[in-house]
């Protein structure tokens, strides 16, 4: 094959004075379609349908309730750990609503709203959170590290940003397999500092991968505020640097998030390319139950953001559309609260995963050395059962 002549300077204009681009600041606006009162800010929209809007609204409530209940269950010592997404429900749930069920979702760890919207059941949440034998991940990971193949929800991994290049690769595979599906990759603005973010965006752009990179810019990475995380204009400006289609949205505006994601999906699927969405939001929750934000941010700052509560904004929008029914919302919330507590009680009394599972899934087949280690461990426990009272040694598997 003949090698064609290339010119990598072709698109570059010359200038003749020493003109430094200062601060590297590109002025990227933020899409906003609902104001804090739920008023529509544009009349030229194809709005969502009532059913979708109500499903998003209920999922947002569900996650708010789940988070509140689980944070208090953790305080009571019933869970070892929890991580809430309070304040970010619109970013996560309205974006998921704009996807198709066949789309793969890879998350960081604060996106339980994806599962709620896709129909993950309360008892499934509880089995994972309680690390019991019914957890499909076999109790191997800390609470909130969900994974569900049936819902196209990739198992969560704690290391930050690792899912970003993986999402590019997964999306490339979807394209090669001719699937009418994309990959949705969520992460926070802190994770975007990891090398994997840069590798992932660059590869997705160069290799034309149908992937949406969805950054929840919630202002904090544990205690570190965004201005100590990066000096440029957020994460969106980096998309432009990598040649990736980019849009910035108000992350507390569910309609803006929904329509931006819908558009992004269409572009990714049709043009076989990545799209970066930067959702500007706020982590109203602590980083996790191991964290206490009062030592690093002002209460007044949190109060300002409470006024921008995405659930409230969604409710006002529904009221304006004539879609809001107070009685049924109250009933929905009351039912979920009691269902969650009942499911928690049930999950708590489930046995933990059988000890023989300690060596499974390391490889597809258990190699001889691991079988031996398992047998030696079980023999040791059988000789000293008094020291391992919580071990599930039951034979039924």
């Amino acid at each position, binding site marked *: 094959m003949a090698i064609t002549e290339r010119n990598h300077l072709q698109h570059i204009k010359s200038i003749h004075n020493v003109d430094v681009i200062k601060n590297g600041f590109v002025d990227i606006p933020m899409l906003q379609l609902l104001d804090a009162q739920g008023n529509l800010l544009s009349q030229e929209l194809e709005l969502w349908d009532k059913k979708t809007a109500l499903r998003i609204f209920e999922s947002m409530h569900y996650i708010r309730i789940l988070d509140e209940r689980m944070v208090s269950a953790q305080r009571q010592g019933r869970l070892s750990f929890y991580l809430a997404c309070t304040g970010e429900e619109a970013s996560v749930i309205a974006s998921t609503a704009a996807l198709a069920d066949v789309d793969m979702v890879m998350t960081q760890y604060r996106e339980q709203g994806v599962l709620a919207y896709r129909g993950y059941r309360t008892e499934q949440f509880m089995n994972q959170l309680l690390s019991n034998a019914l957890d499909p991940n076999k109790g191997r990971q*800390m609470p909130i590290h969900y994974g569900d193949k049936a819902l196209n929800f990739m198992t969560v991994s704690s290391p930050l940003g690792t899912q970003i290049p993986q999402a590019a690769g997964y999306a490339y595979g979807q394209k090669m397999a001719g699937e009418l599906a994309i990959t949705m990759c969520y992460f926070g603005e802190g994770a975007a500092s990891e090398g994997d973010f840069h590798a992932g965006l660059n590869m997705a752009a160069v290799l034309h991968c149908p992937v949406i990179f969805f950054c929840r810019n919630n202002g904090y990475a*544990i205690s570190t505020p965004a201005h*100590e995380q990066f000096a440029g204009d957020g994460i969106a400006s980096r998309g432009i640097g990598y040649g990736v289609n980019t849009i910035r949205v108000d992350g507390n505006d569910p309609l803006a998030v929904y329509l931006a994601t819908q558009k992004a999906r269409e572009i990714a699927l049709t043009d076989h390319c990545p799209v970066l969405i930067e959702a500007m939001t706020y982590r109203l929750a602590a980083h996790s139950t191991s964290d206490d934000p009062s030592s*690093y941010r002002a209460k007044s700052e949190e109060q300002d953001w409470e006024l921008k509560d995405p659930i409230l904004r969604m409710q006002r929008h529904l009221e304006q559309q004539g879609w809001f029914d107070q009685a049924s919302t109250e009933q929905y919330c009351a039912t979920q609260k009691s269902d969650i507590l009942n499911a928690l009680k049930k999950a708590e009394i489930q046995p933990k995963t059988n000890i023989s599972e300690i060596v499974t899934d390391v490889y597809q087949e258990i190699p001889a*050395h*691991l079988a031996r*280690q398992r047998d030696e461990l079980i023999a040791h*426990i059988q000789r000293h059962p008094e020291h391992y009272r*919580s071990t599930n040694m039951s034979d039924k598997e």
Partner: protein
Amino acid sequence: MAQMNLLQAINHALVTAMTTDERVMVLGEDVGHFGGVFRATSELQAKFGQARCFNTPITEQGIVGFATGLAAQGQVPVAEIQFADYIFPAFDQIVNETSKFRYRSGGQFNCGNLTIRTPYGGGIAGGHYHSQSPEAFFTHIPGMKIVIPSNPYYAKGLLLAAIRDSDPVLFMEPKRIYRAAVGEVPEDDYTLPLGRAHIVKEGKDISLVAWGAQVSVIQKAASMAQAEGISCTVIDLCSLLPWDIEAVCDSVQRTGRLLINHEAPVTSGFASEIAATVQSECFLYLEAPIQRVCGLDTPFPLIHEKEYMPDEHKTLAAIKYAVNF
């Protein structure tokens, strides 16, 4: 002397280092105003200013690369990696850069002032991403020193020695005993030698070797063995690279038996290195096979953490096996 836990001792060492040498700087994720997720760097920013104790973006390769350059310039960085489980993006910097800086330049340049601190180990219900003990990977890197304290006194003295050492040091902190390990710590400036093991207790039947949080586990096993008439020497290795071959071999030549305990998976764990050296140096003294009481060759399991851990019961069983061999 003051009563301190291991975290306070580390904080005390950092304050001492920053007070005595204005080139000492502390950097890492959340180490600034917040004082670190475990509070090891508490108050440092208030005491020494933001220029000398600062938050970094979340990029481990960036933290170690930056600190390597900072050390090469002549400053004395103490970089924190929030959890040892997250050190791997920095592996390239450590393996190919930090450790080879001096060697590749024929000694013209070095980053020997660098210390990397990182909490490691299980026992905190952290699952496989907040529990790993990756020390063996790093002992395979010529040019690095690896230090792991087991109590507050050693934590302060060894950390000060690491910061002032002229080679890069990876200082791994057993987070399970951050608050549980409490002891008398001199408030004065002091260092303890790197590369030297500490004989915690002398015995005559078997030598037990561990580091970090597992030292207290072998101590417990030694007490249980004592009750059954078995006398154990307990050795806290303190440094893994270089490690105190002389102290361990000298002990084994007297007891004739050796047990090594670590949390990391048994295969290619650091116990393998110790066992190989001891069988070579002490072949005719050994009266039983060297025992390795270690983690299984699996990822660190959340729900089976208790069963996975090389606890005192497994250690006692191995002690008895070796003594009755």
